[in-house]
């Protein structure tokens, strides 16, 4: 499906979503309450069939956090970028690791680097950071470490 066809189709299926077409791929903004139902549609609708999550990350916008999911369909080769705003003080979102298994590792990384809590994740523990690391999330913009960080 081309970018425009995808937009028309998704606007039908997910009425609450807003779109942004400035980038290379179609961006879709979803609100947290609609997240799980939208994800189910994207994965399971035969004509969409987004079965490959090739990048999952988070961005700290200082006022809020934003989860970014890059999806692709290996059958049709169309791409979609999902964006969800999260509260910076208490970031919480449902896990997608039961739909795309690769998310299990990516979510653990986002959990330790940004402090996002993934609900129903099977094994939410530190992965890269050393044991006993508490609270501070290195990839947030306000992270300071005077010992290990060199300011340029």
């Amino acid at each position, binding site marked *: 499906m081309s970018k425009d066809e995808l937009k028309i189709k998704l606007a039908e299926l997910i009425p609450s979503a807003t779109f942004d077409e400035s980038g290379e791929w179609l961006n879709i903004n979803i609100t947290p309450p609609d997240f799980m139902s939208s994800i189910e549609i994207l994965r399971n609708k035969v004509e969409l069939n987004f079965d490959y999550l090739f990048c999952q990350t988070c*961005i700290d916008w200082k006022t809020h956090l934003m989860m970014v999911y890059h999806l692709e369909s290996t059958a049709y080769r169309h791409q979609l970028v999902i964006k969800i705003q999260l509260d910076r003080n208490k970031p919480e979102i449902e896990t997608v690791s039961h739909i795309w298994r690769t998310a299990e590792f990516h979510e653990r990384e986002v959990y330790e680097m940004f402090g996002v809590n993934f609900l129903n994740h099977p094994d939410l523990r530190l992965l890269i950071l050393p044991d006993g690391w508490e609270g501070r999330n290195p990839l947030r913009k306000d992270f300071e470490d005077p010992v290990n960080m060199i300011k340029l």
Partner: protein
Amino acid sequence: MYRETEILKQPGVGDPDVFGDMVINIGPQHPSTHGVLHLVITLNGETIKKVEPHLGYIHRSIEKMCESLSFRQFIYVTSKMDYLSSHINNHGCCLCVEKGMQIEVPPRAQVIRVLMDELTRLASHQLWWGAGAMDIGALTPFFYAFREREMINDIMEETCGTRLTMNYMVPGGVMTDVHPNFQKRVHQFIDHFKKKIDEYDELLTGNVIFQHRMKGVGYLSKEDAISYGCTGPTARGSGVNCDIRKLFPYEVYNKLQFDEIIETGCDCFARYLVRMKEMRESLSIVEQLIDNIPEGDIQAKTKAVLKLPKGEYYSRVETARGEFGVYIVSEGGTTPYRIKFRSPGYSNLSALDHMARGGKIGDLVAIMAMIDLVIPDIDR
């Protein structure tokens, strides 16, 4: 305090029903992990119940580091991620910056870039072949592979100045022109390696013991490979077509004659065959290009200070291990606001538990060798 001998004398030792599961640590310092990877393995007898990777022993927080480096500087840090595909890492970053700045790369630079990419892929696969065979217990291939790899390293040294982390690509082209000896040396390498790759096959591929160690080990179905986000030879061994060079061609790949290698064995041997055949394809790409490097500039004209317009950019390239993605979020300044590297090894490693579960501990090393793990690429 127990003495080992006292424990061994107890009734039921070695019986998993009496003593329960055994937990074994492999690494962080273990020759078969090819770096500092720590695996905690739960065993029942010899059967693997669970593999838990612990990462971060070589984590340098490259993503955070890049946030304070300019759009020219951050490219060189990425050489240190997947050090066996450093050209291709740099290439991915350059493509992303060029996409944002809308820079047109001159044809000569495009061809040189692809040549360097393919030579890097060959060197990486050679190292994988030698080290992988060594993991399984065959020592000779290691020396054979390094003999050929040395020739590529010499070619790189002449043109780029370094042998491992080349830092040769810049936004808009390549840093310097190729060395006058470049074409001659590459021709020598092609002639030499064409004979040697048949020798590789004779030595290892057809070996019965080797095939027994590989066939049916580490099964990964096509659906699982996609779901785990596996790319590169790991996924192509399971029948997924995921070669970025074919699907979303960059530079001159759409003008070249080469096949995407797909095997449907779904086991370690299929992954092995994919890489062996990929070496031949890479060799053919190098052969097609080496006499057809167009004349002209090696760099497009660019400003001294690059400022990416506000927005988001994503580029994808095919490294020796799979799909490498660069995601840049720019606020219009001289440094990236946020950068994310989608490293192939990280996703491939997430499937390790699935592949090894239910198998024997002896097979774990074979599975790891055929995923071709590079730990700095995983930890970033």
